Structure formats: C-alpha cells, structure tokens
C-alpha cells in the first residue's frame, strides 16, 4: 500500500443557465501520503464535497474540471469511467459516505449488501463469502447480531458502521470520508473516527472531509481549511488546534465559533460560489482586510504550514516547530 495522492491546481466549475458559473473548487493543491490523515474543514457549501466527488469521478456531467489528481501515477480526472469503476472505486479509493441511511439499500439486509460487495471486490464465493462478510463487519465494529437487519432497523451509529464496513472491504489504500460523523453523538463520533484512525495507522491514507472540528482535532495529522472553494490554510493539526493556532483570519474565526471557545460566529455569510467577489473571497467578512486584499492571495509557505492571506497572523519563529 503506497498510495500517494497528489492534487494539483484542481478546479471544478458548474456552468449555470444564464451564463453564470459556480466556482465550487478553485486551484486546490495538496498531497496525501500513506498512513496520513488530512482533514478538510470549512463551512457548509465551501466546496468540500465537490472535491471528494471530483477525486472519485462522481461529478455530474455538466461539471468542468481542470488540474490534476494523481494516485500513484493514475490521473483520476482523465481516467475513463471503465477504469474508475473496475480499478479505482472500492479498490484503490473507498468512500465512507455522509449519510449512511441513504447510502445503504433500504430493501436488503446489511449482510446481503456486505456479501455483494465482498463478492464483487474479492471474488469470494460460498461459505468463504459469509465468513469474509462477517470479518468485514467486525473490522468496522458492526455487531454480528445485527447483520440480518435492514437499514431502517439500525440506529444512526450502526448504519454508519455498516457503511464504513462496506468501504473497507476492498482494502483500498486511500479512504475518503465525507462527513462520516454528521448527526452522530459524541461517543459515536469518537468511535467512528478512532476506527478511521486505526485504518490510517494500518497504512491507509485518509482524506477526512468534515465540519466537525473536534473530530478533525482527534485524528488528523494535517488540516486544510477551505473557504469559497479555495484552500486558505494547510498546516499541522497539532499547531492548528493547539498553539500557536491558525494563521488565517477565517480559520481563527471558525475555531472561535466553537461553544468551547468564544461561541461567536464569523460575521456575515460565505459568498455565493456563483458570485465570488474579486480578490480574497473572505475580505468582506474580515477585520484585517485592506486594499491589498483586492488581489487573490496565493497559498504560500512550507509544507509544515501554508496560508493564503495578505495579513495572516504571524507566529513567533520558535513556536513553529512540528
């Protein structure tokens, strides 16, 4: 398992009727190494899920994609549907979905869905199939006694584990978890993300897309903050959540909105992705904005901590260790 995901200047546009365009993802670049968890955080509607769909080749047909996303040399953006379907999805990239209740087929039991996935991805048949499916359930801490239940008979937490079990069947080196903890209570969030972290420690790369900052803090190695389709800060998780803290004003505001902190929202609302302001998209909400913000700031800095802001909070140099 040596999957290194390398995303370069990825942009996704959706043309609308009337000539407008939704700029869902703009110039996103990052690397994800095996055994590493990168958390992609940001407000709802900032483009996080579109990015995940782009990597999986699951964008709607009207999407226009630029840039590159390579997984061990295979460009995910130009690969044909046949390649994606037979060689990538489930086998090299697995998706832990946002809403397991709607991801699972309502008319079949969890066992039946697991067995189908095991059969498709591993070719197991007969008694071996049953055993493999049960082992897959166990890996995601899904209780064997519930395998013959239908999705609607499961609590949110168990449905999430069923979906995670399905994602892990193919042994894909890269996992993309799109809001895997939405709607779960704190104990279940912790158990779900700890399970994902175990997969990371076993060598998987994990792109954790979430708005749950506590979940990100718990398991991420690095954090990418997305705002209006761009990555505005990409840095180590320990420094981001602890000291010295985020450098981008938006990232600071996002952390300060937590009820554990000052519980104050970032003023205003995110811009519409079909009507982005020129220059820095955060400037209208930013208390540090000046004339310089009329130009889009580039994401600059070392891999240990890059920020896209003309007026980023500075860190004392001695505090910026890894």
């Amino acid at each position, binding site marked *: 398992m040596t999957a290194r995901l390398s995303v370069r200047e990825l942009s996704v546009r959706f043309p609308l009727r009337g000539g407008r365009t939704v700029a869902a993802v703009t110039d996103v670049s990052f690397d994800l190494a095996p055994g590493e968890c990168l958390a992609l955080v940001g407000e709802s509607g900032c483009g996080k899920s579109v990015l995940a769909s782009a990597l999986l080749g699951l964008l709607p047909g009207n999407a226009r994609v630029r840039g590159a996303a390579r997984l061990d040399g295979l460009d995910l953006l130009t690969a044909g549907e046949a390649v994606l379907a037979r060689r990538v999805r489930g086998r090299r990239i697995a998706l832990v979905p946002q809403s397991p209740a709607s991801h699972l087929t309502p008319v079949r039991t969890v066992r039946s869905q697991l067995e189908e996935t095991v059969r498709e991805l591993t070719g197991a048949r007969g008694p071996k199939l049953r055993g493999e499916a049960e082992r897959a359930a166990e890996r995601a801490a899904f209780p064997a006694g519930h395998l013959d239940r239908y999705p609607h008979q499961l609590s*949110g937490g168990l449905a999430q584990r069923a979906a995670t079990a399905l994602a892990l069947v193919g042994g894909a080196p890269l996992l993309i978890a799109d809001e895997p903890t939405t709607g779960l209570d704190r104990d*279940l969030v912790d158990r779900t993300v700890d399970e994902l972290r175990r997969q990371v420690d076993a060598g998987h790369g994990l792109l954790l897309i979430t708005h749950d900052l506590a979940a990100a803090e718990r398991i991420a190695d690095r954090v990418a903050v997305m705002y209006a389709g761009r990555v505005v800060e990409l840095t180590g998780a320990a420094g981001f959540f602890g000291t010295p803290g985020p450098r981008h004003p938006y990232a600071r505001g*996002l952390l300060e909105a937590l009820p554990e902190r000052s519980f104050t929202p970032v003023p205003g609302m995110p811009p519409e992705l079909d009507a982005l302001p020129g220059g820095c998209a955060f400037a209208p909400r930013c208390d540090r904005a000046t004339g310089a913000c009329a130009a889009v700031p580039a994401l600059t800095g070392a891999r240990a901590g890059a920020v896209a802001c003309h007026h980023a909070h500075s860190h004392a140099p001695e505090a910026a260790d890894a």
Partner: protein
Amino acid sequence: MPEPAPEPTCETAPETTPEPALELRGITAGYDRREPVLREVSLTVGDGEAVGLLGPSGCGKSTLARVAALLHRPQAGTVRLAGRPAHGFHHRAPRELRTTVGVVFQQPRLAADPRLTLADLIAEPLRATGRRAEVRVRLPALAASVGLGGDLLARRPHEVSDGQLQRACLARALVLRPRLLVCDEMTAMLDASTTAALVAAVEEYRREHGTALLAVGHDRVLLERWCDRTVEFKTLLPR
C-alpha cells in the same frame, strides 16, 4: 425543605400568571406498544425558560421532542402547552394549540418542501392559518433576524446551503410567534460558525419575545453554553 408561604394574590398581578410553556406528565410513547421508547417521562419547561435535553443517539429524545411538538401521540400521559392540555396530536392537533409550538428538525433537506421558495417556506404557516396579510409585514424582519438577505428568499432549497436552509426552517418555526420553540438537533448538520450564528439568532429572538426553548441534542458543551439548564435524558426514565 421549608416551603415559603404562597404569596397572597396581588391586586396588580398580570392578567395571567405565566404557566409553564411545556408540561409533560407521565408520558409513555413509542412505535411498538409492547416496547415503548419513553416510559412515564415527565419534563417541565418554564415560561421563557431554555432547557437542553441531552442524550445519546437512539435514546428517545427525538420522540420526546415530537410529543412536545404535538407530532407524536403518546400512549399515556398528558401534554400541556402554556397551561392548555393537548387532546389531539399530529394532524388532529387543534390549530390554536399547534401554533403555540414551533419545531426545527435536524435535517433541513427533509423538513423543507423542495418546491417552495424560502420566502414561501417561511410564510406558509401564516397563510395556512389565515393570516396572509401579515406576510408582507413580518417576513422581511423575521428573515433578516435569522440572517437571510433578500436575494436568498427567492431561491428554492436546492439553490441554498444546508446552513441557509436551516435558517429558513428556523424562521418558519418562529413565524407564528410560538410560546415554545423545540429544536431537535437543529445544528447537528452544521459547521461551527453556522451553529453559533443560528444559536445567536434564536437567543436574540427569545430575548425579544420571551419564547421558551426545548433544545434536544447530544453536544453537551453546546447545550450547556446555550440553555438555562440541561437535563440528562436518562434521568427522566424510571429507575
């Protein structure tokens, strides 16, 4: 504990003493008669009070919220809203009682009719209760108080984010000026900033109108920060 002697009725007392916004007494409810989710649960939310109800997934807290909002008929027990007993539930709930409680659900995508614009979504309760004339007066201010600007109101649910749609659902729950607002995991789908903004909007409205709040959720830090007091769901169940 020595009880203070009850005050003699004061001549300048307001016309009505404030009844609790919500009184649940001995509620048994669920989806299977043999295995009720709630057994003899009692809970009171005082007039203007904010109560946070905490519990893990699947414990029955949403069922309790639905009973409080007259959306689920209990097998036993009484529900009183602002002192008035509830005799019908769901579509059988009498209008004058149903309008005393507003509800915001966890998933705005499931709660909001995808065919309506946000403006119509918010105004629908007014139209449904024959108060069409108030729409033009109340809608802009209410929408602004939940942070929805003019252009957004003309859009339909698929054209807005989860956070924006939940803001509209909150405005819809408040448009009839309920005595009690029930928020069932209102912010579970939302990011930290949108959560803080929605809670601030609820609190701003409550300060102005004295609305009581029953906030159901699993985020202890959030509910403790938000509410006057929090109640553990499991303490409501018989030992």
